[in-house]
């Protein structure tokens, strides 16, 4: 199945990536090339096959319910968390106005 320009724009919008007309045109060809190639997966008989969920069998662990057990990933790190924010304000992440 091939995708058209409108679909390319829709995907870009879902992915939150602004694209120009020229980029949309270029991407239409590239994405169709790649998607056309992966179509061959449709040939594989997967009757009764479960989709893979874990490549190496492993069980999810629960950590002990202890506050700040590992200070690296615990709380009270506001300044560290904000250190790389492009526009922090008053100890918060700053964003453009969202309510008019």
């Amino acid at each position: 199945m091939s995708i058209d320009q409108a679909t390319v724009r829709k995907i870009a919008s879902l992915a939150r990536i602004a694209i120009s007309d020229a980029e949309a045109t270029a991407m239409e060809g590239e994405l169709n090339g790649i998607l056309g190639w992966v179509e061959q997966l449709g040939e594989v008989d997967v009757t009764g096959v479960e989709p893979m969920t874990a490549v190496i069998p492993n069980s999810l662990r629960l950590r002990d319910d202890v506050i700040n057990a590992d200070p690296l990933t615990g709380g009270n790190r506001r300044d560290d968390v904000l250190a790389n924010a492009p526009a922090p304000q008053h100890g918060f992440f700053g964003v453009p106005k969202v309510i008019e």
Partner: protein
Amino acid sequence: MTDLTNLTVAGIRDGHRAGDFSAVEVAEAFSANVAGAKALNAFIVETPEHALTAAKAADADRAAGTLKPLSGVPIGMKDLFATKGVQTTAASHMLEGFVPPYESTVSQKLWDAGAGMLGKLNLDQFAMGSSNETSYFGNVISPWRRNDGGPNLKDRAALAPGGSSGGSSSAIAARLCPAATGTDTGGSIRQPAAFVGISGIKPTYGRCSRWGIVAFASSLDQAGPMARDVRDCAIMLEVMAGFDAKDSTSLDLPVPNWEAALSSDLKGKKVGIPKEYRLEGIDPDIDAMWDAGIAMLKDAGAEVVEISLPHTKYALPAYYIIAPAEASSNLARYDGVRYGLRDLPQGAGLQDMYAATRAEGFGPEVKRRIMIGTYVLSAGFYDAYYTQAQKVRTLIARDFEQAFASCDVILAPTAPSAAFGLGEKTADPLSMYLNDVFAVPASLAGLPAMSVPAGLNREGLPIGLQIIGKAFDEQGVLNAGLAIEERAGFTARAEKWW
């Protein structure tokens, strides 16, 4: 005095321990090589002071009798690992200037073991690429040149160092560092190692913690070492591996003493040769080197058996659904709010800021993969693409399981060609993807796999052979690699032009 930068990790460790030289001398010698190799563009940030500080500590530890496993060894750190206080970019504009307030588990383990950092190594942007041509900070150049193309090495065509760990491969081959970290999602340790004539191992998925590594495709991403020989890979991996509660897929297993158990005696071992890896129209030098490798392993005492991995041809297309799908999800975090780049056009709202930031911060290959991933995960296409790919992935893993009923390790080429020239494959994304045809199946199955140099092709460029092992059997992989290394006697190195 011998040139310290020609020493391996083991050579530096043992020589330092014996008092043949100081760690400071080693760090200074490598830092000088780094500073003199700007033409390779292997480093995004150089940190000679970090290497020197670790070296001084190593010399003090020697005097105090408290040496650590990597005391005195300076290494390169792929710029995908978060390093506290040192810019970490994933070779992207998005993370330019990002200075992590914490250290990745793998890098912390290396520093705790006494290693020092020479700098942050260039890579394909967000580890997406096979030639190191997608970095925002420019292409990495391989130190190798073809043996034809004019009298001056410098004027011959620039070759790709492979990718995504191309800064790591180029730097080791050029003697800018004795070893480096790499990460491998679909061949990103093995293929660059093969392109420059060094060794590299991707361990079993879960051996090395992913905590603090910039995420690409989390079900595939795995860190591993790159170095000049098999022993050095074993030494590095012992330090890098180990359980980490901060990574939910970390393997809770003891780390074996891989170095101590190295043995190239393969008597009683069976080596599988997958018939589906004989590709029609492949470079005859690759097939010839593969046959030479088979002979080497026989010489080491192994029995060689033909095996079948029937779903091999579907591995790459499955990978190019699964990896972009995970990437599109992982990279959703780059929103211009919490860290990294923000592009806020005049009067823009939140949604426009997201779109502008991501348009500005991601390179074309990253955008392409996010778009593919978004599409295959979108309503109406999820089952046809993503679920189907995950089912095929189950079949690929099953192929390996069945093959390992009749063999201990698998021998195959690492890549279908030697290093190609910069720009040769950038016009068509698909042709670039196909370079990972032999590397991707082991990634999809989470298996340990390594590349070791086997010889030079007719153009004078290195060719690597790949050994794939059973889950958790890094030892079997390293041992078969050592058997090839001893017999191939690969000593060729790139002649200096930079």
